[in-house]
């Protein structure tokens, strides 16, 4: 028993040294994740701001001018560029000088003055259809607001609905990005480190030496699992601290639950990393394999785009994605003060994925050896 323990400890110590020996790799373990965290945090905003919009005003009336002033005054728009003709508008949109153009027809003011309803033309650059759509939303809002001042009493009295955003009242985008990034960046690093470690030994031929040593397969696998687990836990806690103290994202849940969930999440990821490494012969294959696994995990997690928007058959596939579950947990623990019972609802699928992937990896390693 104690011999097994000594062997296990030696294996773990060896693996930690293998990971930390090279100064370049040491830096790579912590620095890129931190840089990723910072760039992701600031870059991934789906707001649309500082946009130039074109204007073809064929009416020249007071109502048209008032509407344009309101658009100019709103913070989403930078400049309203007056275009003399529709031909000029075509060119401006083609060459992406403006993302959208307002076309105010000649009878715009006359119709409003007569109390008739009127139409405002908006031409959008479909090459950036998402941003253009958001922009169209802003313009519609401003037009509706101006229109409401001219509307019949019933609509005015019906007022607007009372909108409340729970957990993130001012819809601060960073409160979404940072917790999500904890899940994402750990998955990138976790799978990459695990798969590379084994592949390097294999490429250098030291894996065979391990195999002829008295170590059991189980002991080798556990030895391979511990260093990425430690690195991931360390990065996870580091990210949590950065999110909370540097960016002021509230952490309302239990830290202990966070650690427990991290362990399950990491085990699921490491299992996938080991599977990749069991299937690859060189570091290059391991790297590409981990990339091929990580990208779908991230894109299907619900972070990049809501799972609700995916086709139904693809939504079913997302149930096999560990990032999906940890994303819900980590967002819940940060913002929703998610209680343990709800965390466990997401935790058991992680446990199932971990058990399946780890045992599949162990089986593959054994099969390869014989």
């Amino acid at each position, binding site marked *: 028993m104690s011999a097994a323990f000594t062997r296990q400890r030696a294996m773990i110590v060896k693996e930690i040294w293998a990971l930390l020996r090279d100064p*370049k*790799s040491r830096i*790579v373990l912590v620095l*890129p994740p931190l*840089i990723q965290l910072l*760039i992701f945090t*600031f870059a*991934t905003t*789906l*707001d649309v701001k500082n946009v130039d919009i074109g204007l073809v005003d064929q009416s020249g009336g007071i109502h048209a001018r008032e509407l344009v002033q309101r658009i100019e005054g709103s913070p989403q728009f930078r400049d309203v560029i007056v275009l003399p003709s529709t031909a000029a508008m075509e060119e401006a*949109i*083609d*060459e*992406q000088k403006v993302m959208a153009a307002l076309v105010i027809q000649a009878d715009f003011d006359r119709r409003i003055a007569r109390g008739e*309803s*009127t139409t*405002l033309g*908006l031409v959008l650059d*479909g*090459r950036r259809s*998402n*941003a*253009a759509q958001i922009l*169209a939303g802003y313009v519609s809002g401003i037009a*509706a607001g101006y*229109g409401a001042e001219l509307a*019949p009493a019933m*609509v005015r*009295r019906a007022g*607007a*609905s*009372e*909108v*409340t*955003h*729970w957990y*993130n009242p001012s*819809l601060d*985008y960073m*409160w979404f990005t940072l917790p999500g990034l904890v899940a994402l960046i750990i998955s990138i690093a976790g799978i990459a480190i695990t798969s*590379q470690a084994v592949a*390097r030994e294999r490429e250098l031929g030291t894996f065979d030496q391990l195999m002829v040593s008295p170590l059991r397969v189980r002991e080798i696998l556990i030895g391979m699992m511990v260093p990425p687990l430690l690195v991931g836990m360390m990065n996870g806690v580091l990210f949590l601290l950065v999110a909370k103290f540097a960016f002021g994202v509230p952490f309302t849940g239990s830290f202990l639950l966070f650690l427990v969930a991290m362990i399950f999440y990491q085990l699921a990821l490491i299992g996938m990393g080991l599977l990749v490494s069991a299937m690859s012969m060189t570091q*290059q*294959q391991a790297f*590409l394999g981990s*990339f*091929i696994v990580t*990208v779908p995990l991230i894109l*299907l997690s619900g972070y*990049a*785009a*809501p799972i*609700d*928007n*995916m*086709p139904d058959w693809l939504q079913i596939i997302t149930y096999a994605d560990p990032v999906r579950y940890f994303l819900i947990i980590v967002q*819940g623990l940060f*913002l*929703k003060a998610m*209680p343990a019972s709800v965390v466990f609802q997401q935790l058991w699928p992680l446990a199932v994925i971990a058990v399946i992937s780890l045992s599949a990896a162990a089986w593959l390693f054994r099969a390869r050896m014989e």
Partner: protein
Amino acid sequence: MTSDDRSVAHAQASAGGSSRRRLLALIVKEYAQIRRDPSTFLIAFAMPLLLLFLFGYAISLDPRETRIAVVAQDESAPAARLVQAYVHSPYFSVTPLRAVAPARALMEQDAIRGFVVIPPDFGVSMASGAPRPIQIVTDGTQPNQATFIASYAEGVRLNWIASEMDMRGIRGAAPPIDVSQRVWFNPGLQSRFFLVPGAIAIVMTMIGTLLTALVVAREWERGTMEALLATPMRMTEFIASKVLPYFLLGLASMVLCTVIAVAVFGLPFRGSIFALMAIAAAFLLPALGLGLYISAATKNQFVASQMALLLSFLPTFLLSGFIFEIGSMPWPIQAMTYAVPARYLIPALQTVFMAGDIWPIILPNILIMLGFGVGFFILCFRATRRSLDS
């Protein structure tokens, strides 16, 4: 290598077509290496399929059936009609409830993304002509969806009010200023149309930077690079032999991606093949240059792979403007985007697919990418030479 040896090498090199033969031999070697390693084909052909597939299907920014609950605290006929209006909206998948408490629990479990509360005396207040406001509560942990739910839930209510007023014969329910939008190049507003060109940019980055960084770092790590450098080949020949095969691989992959984009995902292709190839070639230069530079600077496969991810894949994904609008980023990040070659690839690609050969957009972007290419290759030369001398 002594200066004597070098002059001998030079003399040999200048003798007849031996230089061309050497380059050919190097390219044949590189080709054999690519052919023998399945991972190269994985990255050049399987990876594009996977990425296009994911960006074509998984990342849809077109909302459909967002899960919400409607809490009707009022049993009057107008309230029931409003509930029906939500149920029939194509944008929502509705769980009808009677109380707020279960809605709160569902929200905590992530089972719904928001809910609408119709207050108790809603029907009575409707009859009196001053309807009480409904409440729209969203899950703010996902701000985009929260904004979407707030505006679409309000839209459903406004339509419903208009139809109620029609029922009572009140005129003028139509909004006084209606915005009629026309979307050029992508009238169906399919997010796929801009995501797929983005995926192609990522594929080009993977082949150009990641693959070369890995392949050449492996030669350094195994020591075969030193063996190569001890041969009489020249630096330009060496770099050309490393670049050409991957350059061709990249172009082939671009053709494959374009065919899939048009045939499977229904993207329009309104530009010319010539423009597309010019754009691809111009982008592959900086991508390959960066890959070679990373491998020469790190000489270690693990570090090279991580650096390639950090310096090529992530910037292409995040800072090229293909999902996230550059204009909305804080200025230091905006400044960084100018150093990302993919920033110039994306608008050119989107234009050639959706709009056509609009040279005032395509040409400046091509020139900037070529400029980056030259810069990276100069860095490459210097990094390789320095490591030889040391």
